Structures are given as C-alpha cells and as structure tokens.
C-alpha cells in the first residue's frame, strides 16, 4: 500500500487555484456581490456573529462518495461570504468534509482552501486499496458504461471456443480411423481442450479465491487502510490526536454576539461535531464522538482513535471493509449504563462493527432539531447531493430492470429515515441547498481533474443560488410557526442523544 504522502503527491497537477480561480466560481462571487453589496440588500443569514463580522450557522453535509468534492465548492462560497459553523455533522463523504472543517484552524477561520489542498494532493484511486483484480473490475465497471456488455461478449467467446474444441475432438476422434493423418490433429485438439479446461479451471479457482478473500476480509473489497492513514495524518497535522482533542476543537467558540434579542441567549450555544455510522452488531445508528461512552469508560475515551470515526462513517458496505471497535468493557457499570440509557440495551457487546452511516442516515439534519427552541438564533443549513438520474425518477415501474428494482428497494429503505424527518418538518427544507450531480457516479474514484473541478463549480453555483434565495427573517418566522403548530399537534420530540441548539 503506498503511503498517503508519497503515493499521492505528484500524481495530480491540480492546484487550489484551478478550483477557486475557475471563471464560473468567480462569477458566483460576483453574483453574490451584486445581490448584496451593490443592491444594498443586507446579507444577514443568522443572528449570531463574531468580532470579525462572520455569521454562524449549523451545517449538515450529505454523504455521496466522490461527490463530496461538490460539498467543498458549496462551503467555499459560504466561507467566502463570511459564514462560519458552530455545529457540524455529516455522513460518509460528508463526514470527511465535516472532520476537516472541524480540525483545521479555529471556528472563525476559513477552511475550504486547506481542504481543497488536501484533495489536490490526494490521488483518489489510492483509496481503492483492495486486490488488483478487484480494483481493475471496479475501475472498468464504473468507468466503462458498456462494461456489462463487454463481459457478456467475453463469456460468449469463451463458451464458443469450448464448443468448437469439443466438436473438433469429437469429429477428429472418429475420422482418424478413416484418415490416419487426422490422428495428429486429434491429439493437438485434445491438448488444446485440456489447456482450455485449465484456463476455465484457473478462472473459476481465481474467482473462488477472490470471493474467499472477500469473506475473510469481512466482505469488504478494499481494506480502507489508505483512507484511514490519510485522514489520521490530516487530523494529527491539525493537532487532533485524541478524541478529547477533537471535542476541544469542535466546542471552542470565539466571542459571539446576538444580533437580536432571543430568550435562549448565547449561553446554551455550544459547538460540536457529529459523524454518523451504522453499527451492525447491535443494529443502531451511532453518533461519533458523542456516543464514545458506549465503547469506552469516560476516563479511557482517548484510547479510541478519532480517525476511526470517519473511517467508520465512510465504510461503504462491500466496497470497503467494515470498521471494528474491539475490547469494549461490557462488564463496566459505566458502559452498561450508557448502553441502557442510549439504546435500552442491557447486554453491551464486546465488539462492534461499523459500516457507512449512509445506510441509515445519509443526511442527518434531524440531529440539529431542538423542539425546545421557539425562536432560532441561527439556521441549520444542509447540503444535499442529488445524483439521481432523470430515468431513475421514472414512475413507470413496469420498465425497471432487476438492478433498478433492487436499487429502488434499497434506496427506499435507506432514505426514508431522513425523508420522514423532513416530511414531518418541511420547514427545514428552507435551509437545504441541493447540488445537481446526476452526471457523476458517486463511486467513481477514477475522476479526471476536469470532473473534480466541475463538481466543485456545481457546489459553488448551488451555494450561490441558495444564499440569494435565503431569507433569514422568513426562516426565523417559519421556524417559530412550525414550533407552535407542532406543539398544537403534540408531535413527540425526535430522539437525539444530546440537546442540540439552534
């Protein structure tokens, strides 16, 4: 496995200026300048601000594999407009961006350029660190749209060769008794048939071996070690070695002010960070680092590795190996209580296994919802990555293929948790910006530089449009009205493990 530093540098010619200096990105900033500075429309998106005039919001970033580059384009524009983030949350690719936005510099600093730098230095294909054969299949499968047809053609050719060889054996075997010279052809034909079956046997054996490897690796094609080392080094470089370092970074706020009077005041405003992961042993959604107490006693929290939380959040099932946390002191009263309080689980496991948080909650905006808050001090923004193809939106169910049908079923299950929250709290849609990315495959780790820049631009454009359309006063009013309406309907509070603040 190449090291994250040596294996990535020099393999891409991209610089941060290629992204930020793109004419369309500059045009986005000009549009915002026109919409606010030049038109005298005040740019107010929150009541919370600091000494430098930065305005603060909460931010949720959706998961979506390599589409995460678009998230950086979006946050770049937000930061350029003086927006900073108090609470951050994300899943999978969203968790990666969230982590970097948390650890780089201080809350009041702009971070997108440094994140871009990390992306420029990263060869995405190194993240696919599995067996070369698996890498090759993934590469071909994702980058060649006609890969299925190609494989099908190959199978047909191999089958046809087998048929021809066996027919040749059959014919020459009989004819050699009439024409002696055909015996030579028959022998050659038999040898080739033997070699043909050797090849078939080899392919079958090799496939079985790859599958056994997959099984032994916990059904993950790629170990994910490269990613783990990459993110760990970035965390360490930014002073986050332990869980307590991460919590400190996430919670440290500059001196803040409230623009308008609010009964909540600033006292209850706390910064934090959340990465979502799906835990398979106890079948729960885990919010890192807040739920670390499920896996270690408070005094030993730092024996967990913060890079592991992000690795757990992005462990796309089958594509990456699962992430494990072992040696859970499941007999400790403190740990038992944590499990009981959080999941009503009297028998904590000794080992847990995580896969991508996206299978449960790919867009965890619900964790920022605090039903106790009547008038918000700051908005909760969300960045949605919309990669659904127009044909996927087809309601003509009879024409779906088997993969389309299975995909629909899986997506219905995995999206409904977040969708249900947004259906019941439609108001939150006002804080969500959607980046259209239907031209890109979320698992395409073989992106061209041009694609990376285009995704960044799409993120920047979506953020620009969102900021132009966003009205903080309307948002505040809508949020308050929603609260009143919910109180009247007596809707139960959403389950969260802490008291969020908006």
């Amino acid at each position, binding site marked *: 496995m190449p090291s994250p530093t040596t294996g990535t540098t020099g393999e891409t010619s991209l610089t941060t200026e290629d992204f930020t200096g793109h004419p369309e990105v500059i045009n986005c900033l000009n549009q915002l300048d026109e919409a606010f500075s030049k038109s005298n429309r005040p740019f107010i998106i929150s009541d919370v601000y600091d000494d430098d005039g930065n305005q603060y919001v909460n931010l949720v970033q959706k998961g979506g594999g390599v589409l995460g580059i678009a998230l950086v384009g979006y946050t770049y524009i937000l930061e350029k407009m003086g927006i900073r983030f108090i609470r951050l949350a994300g899943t999978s690719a969203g968790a990666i961006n969230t982590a970097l936005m948390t650890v780089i510099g201080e809350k009041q600093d702009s971070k997108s350029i440094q994140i871009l730098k990390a992306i420029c230095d990263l060869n995405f294909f190194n993240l696919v660190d599995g067996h070369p054969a698996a890498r090759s299949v993934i590469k071909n499968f994702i980058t060649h749209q006609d890969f299925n047809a190609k494989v099908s053609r190959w199978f047909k050719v191999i089958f046809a060769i087998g048929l021809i060889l066996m027919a040749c054996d059959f014919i020459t075997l009989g004819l050699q008794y009439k024409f002696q010279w055909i015996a030579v052809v*028959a022998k050659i034909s038999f040898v080739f048939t033997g070699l043909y079956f050797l090849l078939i046997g080899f392919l079958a054996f090799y496939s079985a071996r790859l599958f056994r490897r997959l099984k032994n690796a916990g059904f993950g094609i790629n170990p994910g070690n490269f990613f783990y080392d990459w993110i760990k080094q970035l965390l360490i470089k930014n002073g986050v070695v332990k869980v307590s370092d991460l919590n400190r970074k996430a919670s440290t706020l500059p001196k803040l002010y409230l623009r308008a009077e609010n009964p909540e005041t600033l006292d209850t405003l706390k910064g934090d960070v959340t990465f979502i992961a799906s835990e398979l042993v106890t079948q729960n959604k885990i919010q890192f680092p807040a739920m670390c107490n499920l896996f270690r006693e408070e005094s030993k929290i730092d024996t967990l590795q913060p890079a592991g939380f992000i690795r757990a959040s992005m462990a796309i099932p089958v594509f990456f190996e699962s992430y494990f946390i072992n040696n859970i002191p499941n007999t400790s009263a403190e740990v038992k209580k944590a499990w009981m309080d959080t999941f009503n689980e009297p028998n904590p496991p000794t080992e847990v296994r995580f896969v991508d948080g996206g299978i449960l909650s790919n867009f965890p905006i619900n964790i920022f919802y605090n039903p106790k808050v009547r008038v918000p001090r700051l908005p909760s923004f969300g960045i949605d990555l919309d990669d659904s193809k127009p044909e996927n939106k087809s309601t003509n169910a009879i024409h779906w293929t088997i993969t389309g049908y299975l995909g629909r079923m899986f997506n219905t299950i995995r999206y409904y948790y977040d969708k249900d929250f947004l259906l019941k709290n439609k108001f939150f849609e006002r804080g969500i910006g959607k980046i259209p990315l239907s031209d890109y495959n979320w698992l395409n780790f073989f992106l061209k530089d041009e694609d990376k820049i285009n995704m960044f631009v799409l993120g920047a454009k979506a953020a620009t449009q969102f900021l132009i359309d966003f009205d903080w006063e309307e948002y505040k009013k809508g949020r308050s009205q929603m609260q009143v309406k919910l109180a009247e309907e007596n809707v139960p509070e959403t389950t969260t493990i802490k008291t969020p603040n908006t």
Partner: protein
Amino acid sequence: MNIPFYISSNGTLFCIVFGVMALTGFIMRLQSRNFYTLHVFVRKFSMLDLEFPVSALELATYIKGIFLLPKELSSRSLRALKGQLYLDFLFIPFVYGTIFLLCMAVSHKMNFVGHSIFTVLAWAQVAPLFCDLIENFYLLQKIRPDAAISKPSVHKAYQLLGKIKWGIASISVASVISTLFYFWLTGNFSYGAISVLSVIIVELIIIYILMRITGNKPTVDLDQYQNIGN
C-alpha cells in the same frame, strides 16, 4: 527413435511416487487447517495467500499477524505453517516427479514432435521444482515477528517464482491429462496401464477416506477470539 534425455517410465515407480505425493499432500492439507493470522480480526489464511500476496506489505502483514495472535493460537499456527513448509521439501520432489513420469509416459506413446514436446515438458519440471524450493527457503526465513516488507525487486522475483512454478506445472498436467484421455478413448493403451490406473484409483480412495475421517471443520472456534484485534 527416442530423443536424448528420454527416460522410459515405470508403472510401479509412478504408483509409489504418486502415493507418497498424495499422502504428504493430505498431511499438508491437515496442517493448513491451523493457519490463522490477526489482521483487524482473527482470520484464516492459506498457503496460496502467502504464495500470491497482493503486495509485499500483505505478505509481511500475514506473517506478523501470526505472532500477534493469542499465545496458544499463535504457536499452533506457527507450528502448522513451519511444519507444512518443511514437509513441502518432501512433497516437492514427489509432485514434480509425478508430472515428470506422466510426461515421459505420454512422450513414449507419441511420435515425432509430440515425443519431443512431452520429453521437454518432463524435464521442464526441474524449473518449478527449484522455484518451489527457493520459495520455501524464502518463506521460512521470513517467518519472524518482525517480518520486513521486501524490496519491490525482491517481491517481484518472488511473484515470478510462483508464476513459473504454477505455469509450467499446470500446463504440463493439462496437456498430459488431455492426451491420456485421447489414448484412453482410442483404446491405445497396454494392460499394464490398467494396473497402474487401478492402483492410482485405490490410492485416491484411501486418501478420500482419510479426508472424510479427519473431517473438514475448522480446528478453532473463532468466536472465542472475537474480542481481540484492531
């Protein structure tokens, strides 16, 4: 006319060589059931994983992982792995000897070019034999708690040894068996060949019975080791 280096194959010798190969192969199979390593979690591995690692790092990881296992499991795995490698020194001459004798037997029945090709294939077994021996020595010196990651050139050479070994041996076996199949279908064989075939079938049945008796279940309950690793 026989070409130089042609050796007439002997049925009795072939039965003995094949029998010893089958028996040592069976014992090695038993040993391989104890191959465990620790990488993230306790997992099984096979000799093929060591012969064809994805990278030099993977080979070192497999070996180091054995020493990271709990003491009892680590000793068991090491004993089995080293035992298999030592036994392999006995297995190697018999396995390639079997292929050598088969190639010579087929060569005897062929005319012209076929005779030469199979004689060459028979003597070509010397190459995989030496590759296998070198591979074994390399692995034996590599099995240590601080197994180093080999240099790219060394790892490439190691991979080449495996490819030569398996390539020559499997092409020879496939060619020989398909040609024998041809002779069988055309009825071009002696009564002595039927006796040899009968002995081989009996030997295979004995090995099969032994395999059934010893079972194929893992010798270790991995659940008891679920709480280690990472």
